[in-house]
Each structure stands twice: as C-alpha cells, then as structure tokens.
C-alpha cells in the first residue's frame, strides 16, 4: 500500500532528477565563458555569459516592458488554442466522418513555413494582439487536438462495455470514461505545446509588433547587440520553463491517482 509522500521528500527527488541537467548546463556556460575570455573574440560577435547577464540586469526595465506583451500573447493564444482543440476533439469524437474532413486541413496548416505566414498574418491583421493569438494557435492547436483524440482512443474497452451494460448514454460514457482517460495524453500535449506557444508568440512579434520580446530581439540584432539578443533568449527560455513547470504542476494536482500508479511501477 503506497502512501502519499511528504513535500520535502518529493522536492529532494525532484532535485536528484534535475541535478545531472544542471551540471551539464553549468559546464556548457563555463566553457563558453572561458572561450570568450581566452580567445579575445569581440563582444559584438560572441559576448561572454557574464556580459549577457550584466546587460540583462542593466536593461531590465526594457526587457520587462517587452516581456509582458509576449506573456499576454502566449497565454491568450494558448488559451484560445486549447479551447478550440478541446471543442474540435469532442466534435471529431462524436462525428467520426468529421475527422476525415478536417484532419487533412489541420495537417496542411502544420506544413506552412512560419517565416512566410507570420508576416502575412501581421499584414492582414495589423500590429495588435490578434495576429499573435492566431500564430500561437496555429502552432499549438494541432498538437493539442491530436493529443486529445489519441487520449480518447486509449480508453479501456472493458470500461466502455461496462458503462454500456449499465445503460449509460454516449455523452455520459464520454464524460465518465473517455475524457478522464484522455487526461494523461492531454497533459503530455500541453507540456509540449506550451513550449511551442512561446516560440510562436515571439515569432509573431518578430514579424511586426509595437512591443514584445520578438521585436526587441529584432531591434537588438539590427543594433549589433548580440548580448541583448541573448539576454532576451534567456528571458524567453525562463518564461518557457516557468510555463512548462506550471503545466506539470497542474497535472500533478489534477491527477492524484497517477502519482500512485508511478510509485507502483518505479
């Protein structure tokens, strides 16, 4: 019989899990610092990590002012995308022929090069929030939809036969069996898609925006400030990691039974 472990123990095990990754990252940064110092390479070509960090602190106000719109675009776009993916996943689950009608279109949407599409969407919808939301949705909608549809398909057949024998309607079977069965798939999709979402938002801003990390990166690049470009990269990577962690935590809280499953099969 497994017990719910204390938060302290799970923190220690989390640290043990990310320890090796931390060591790798620290070694890479140290090697980069060493190379930048020893080789005497110009800071406008390859700034040392210490310089990137110093510049990040110095420009923190500008960075913060440009990060907020990116966060807003990411979260709004992702919320729209997940809602739409859920809606379509239910439609496709209930009306199977719809799947054949819609999926080819969605798959084609994933083949479009962002470099070409982003400027067009900005051209059509302006510099406001709308084109960013659309681009974030474009890159995250399909992965979320596929995750949900796969999750429904993974429902235990015995469970559905059981509900049918009890006289459950199709909708009830969906709510009681198919939807909960899809949760692990949904969260797996969520974790991946949230990282796409940040990249999508920055790309949309890069193609044209008044404010945002994307346009900040473009300006820094045009002003020959690779240190500020890298500072923005650091900010966006942090943002992605924070969102990823948030997704993991939501999964942890909303699926308490899965923690037990994992403990049973270490």
């Amino acid at each position, binding site marked *: *019989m497994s017990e719910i472990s204390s938060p302290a123990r799970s923190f220690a095990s989390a640290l043990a899990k990310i320890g090796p990754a931390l060591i790798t990252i620290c070694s890479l940064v140290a090697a980069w610092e060493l190379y930048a110092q020893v080789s005497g390479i110009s800071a406008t070509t390859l700034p040392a990590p210490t310089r990137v960090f110093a510049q990040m602190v110095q420009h923190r106000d500008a960075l913060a002012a440009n990060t907020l719109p990116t966060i807003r675009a990411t979260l709004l776009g992702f919320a729209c995308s997940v809602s739409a993916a859920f809606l379509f996943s239910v439609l496709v689950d209930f009306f199977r022929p719809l799947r054949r009608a819609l999926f080819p279109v969605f798959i084609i949407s994933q083949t479009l090069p962002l470099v070409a599409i982003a400027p067009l969407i900005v051209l059509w919808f302006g510099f406001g929030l709308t084109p960013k939301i659309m681009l974030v949705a474009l890159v995250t909608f399909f992965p979320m939809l596929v995750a949900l549809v796969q999750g429904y398909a993974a429902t235990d057949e015995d469970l559905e036969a059981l509900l049918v024998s*009890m006289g459950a309607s199709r909708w009830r079977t969906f709510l009681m069996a198919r939807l909960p069965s899809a949760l692990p798939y949904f969260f797996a999709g969520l974790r991946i898609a949230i990282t796409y979402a940040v990249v999508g938002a920055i790309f949309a801003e890069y193609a044209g925006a008044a404010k945002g990390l994307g346009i900040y990166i473009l300006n820094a690049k045009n002003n020959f400030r690779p240190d500020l470009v890298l500072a923005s990269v650091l900010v966006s990577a942090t943002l992605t990691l924070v969102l990823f962690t948030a997704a993991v935590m939501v999964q942890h809280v909303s699926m308490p039974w899965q923690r037990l499953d994992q403990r049973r099969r270490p």
Partner: protein
Amino acid sequence: MSGNRLELRHLRKSFGGLDVLADISLTVQAGEFVSILGPSGAGKSTIFKVLTGSVQPDGGAIMFDGDPLTKEKRPFAFMPQRDALMPWRRIIDNATLGLEVQGVTRKVARTRVAPIFAEFGLEGFERHYPAQLSGGMRQRAALLRTVVQHRDMLLLDEPFGALDALTRAGMQRWLQSMWERHRWTVLLVTHDVREAVFLSDRIYVLTGRPARVQTEITVPLPHPRIDLATPEASAVEASLLQILLNPDQRS
C-alpha cells in the same frame, strides 16, 4: 422447477464473415449459478456483449422472465474481464458507478454502498484509489460495483482470470460463500474447469469457434463445497477436461 429467468434460443453472431457464435441455446433459473465453459477465443465473451447490448445478434432470441429482452429492460449487472475499475475514481466512487448512471446522485449513492464494504472485505479502503489495492481486493471491489446495481442477474466474465493461482482459489471460495448467502442468479464465463465445477449448479460446455453448446452437465455436488478433493468432484472435472480436450468425440 420454476420458470426460466434467462433463456437463449439459437443465438448466432458473426463479425465480418467470421462466425463466432453458431448456435447458443441455454437457460438459467432464478437463484441458479450457471457457467459457460469453453476454450479461449471461443466467443464466450461475445455472449455477454450480446446480453449487455453492445453487440447485436444476427439471429436467435433472448427471453428474460418469459418476454423478449428489450433495450429498455436492463436485467443484467455485468462484471467485465479484468476489473475495469476507473483508476481516477476512489474505490467508493467506483462502487457507485452503476447507481450514478441510473441517475442517483453521488452523495446518495455513497451512503447506499458504504454499508456493504465490510461484507466485501473492503472496509477502510473506501477512499483508496484502485492502484493502491491488491488484485484480489480490486476484484472484490469490481464485484461490489456489480451487485449494488440490484439487477435481476449477474454476468461475470472470467472474473478471476488475471489473478495468481492462490488468490484465485481464495476468491472462488469467497464468491461461493457470498453466493450461498445471497443466492444471486449468476451466469459465469470461464475457461477454468475447476472454477466451473467448484462454483456452478450447471455447466454449458462450448465448442471452439464458431461456438455451439457441446454439452450441458449438472454438477451433482452439494453446497457448500469446501474443497474439490472428493472423488465425485474429480470425476466431473475429468469428464469436462475429456470433452474440452477431445472435441470430436461428442458425448
């Protein structure tokens, strides 16, 4: 003898040209424990799928209490192979599943199933998740979920197939004692000869696919059956094995 609770007449079913059920006729009386014994893949589970309405038969008739079975009438409580407990529901909420589908609110359903937990040896495990329970306990929880629906008849589909031999023997004894007390009307599907002999009043032996009823035997052993080491029990078991292993020599 009282009237038949359940009667199947010449049930037929094929899936895309593959004949699964060729000719199944059987009866179950009220309070009787009847087993369907047959080789794996013979279509035993298909009979239950037809009864529970997830598969439509190609021919034949299903009578319950003398009337044809309709979709509205749901006289069966079904226990699928493996336990089919929902991993995301606590044991008590798995137990209430059937009542919830019937439209009982979760709160009312919980108060209704809670008193039965002790009888099923699950007292104190109401708030546990299925993953926290042993295989035997999970099967008891699945049976609890089945009987609380208060249907006229139980359909048990190889309920102990996934358990280890020792747990299985324990569960068979437990099920028998539960049946002695409640006298449910039970139709059990199994490929375990000993299990069928130990639990049943009557046994229908099926052929391999396409399934027909090969033999029907009455188990001449008095209840309660403590063990199967008696010569009578061994004789029944041996003759059943003989039929199953030599399907050409019809008795």
